[in-house]
């Protein structure tokens, strides 16, 4: 089981202005978990209602894959520079 990412660094530099941001994902993840727990009865009902059409199973799988994608983002780095403009995203 992979660990979810802990930090995300975002840096956007325009020609004149720019900003950098450190996102503490390790603090956001517990919040996301709480939201998920609160919404889980609604998700469960939606899945049960949609199950006969085949979308219920798909919705569950999408949730699983979305979590997997979130965990797989650790190590992602995008650094694009064009002239004075720059976009930098790093997930650690």
């Amino acid at each position, binding site marked *: 089981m*992979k660990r979810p990412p802990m930090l995300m660094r975002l840096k956007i530099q325009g020609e004149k202005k720019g900003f950098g941001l450190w996102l503490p994902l390790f603090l956001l993840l517990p919040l996301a978990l709480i939201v998920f727990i609160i919404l889980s009865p609604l998700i469960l009902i939606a899945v049960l209602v949609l199950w006969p059409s085949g979308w219920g199973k798909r919705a569950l799988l999408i949730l699983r894959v979305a979590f*997997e*994608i979130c*965990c*797989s983002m650790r190590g*992602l*780095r995008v650094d694009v520079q*064009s*002239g004075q403009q720059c976009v930098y995203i790093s997930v650690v």
Partner: protein
Amino acid sequence: MTENKKKILEMLAQNKISTDDAYRLLSVIESGESGQESASKADANVRGKAKYLRVTVLPEAENEHSGNVDRVNVRVPMSLIRAGIKLTSLIPPEARDKVNGALREKGIDFDVRNVKPEDIEELIEALSDLEVDVVSSKGEKVKVFVE
């Protein structure tokens, strides 16, 4: 049978070496062969454990220190690619047909339904052999590789 092993057996047949010597020489050759095999296996393992797909665009060396250059450095974890490919199996049939149609319009005759989970590992393994190295007419170096 290798050439060296044949020579040893010939020397043994001609009584030039003793049975013990022949045995010792043969075991030395066999250990060398197994060493080579394990080295190639280790090399395959290293390639199999490729962690990132890298895409880099580097400016021409002369322009590198000037401010007005385009530079790209992208590192995508293989696990993210793996998870992304898994998403294709969740595309609803109607959307899948649209995707296939759009691909066909672009001249790519590919059916996303054919991407099966068991093919993913094979695809990732094939990616570890990928290496693209292009130098544009402007002198920019484009590299796509796996590390």
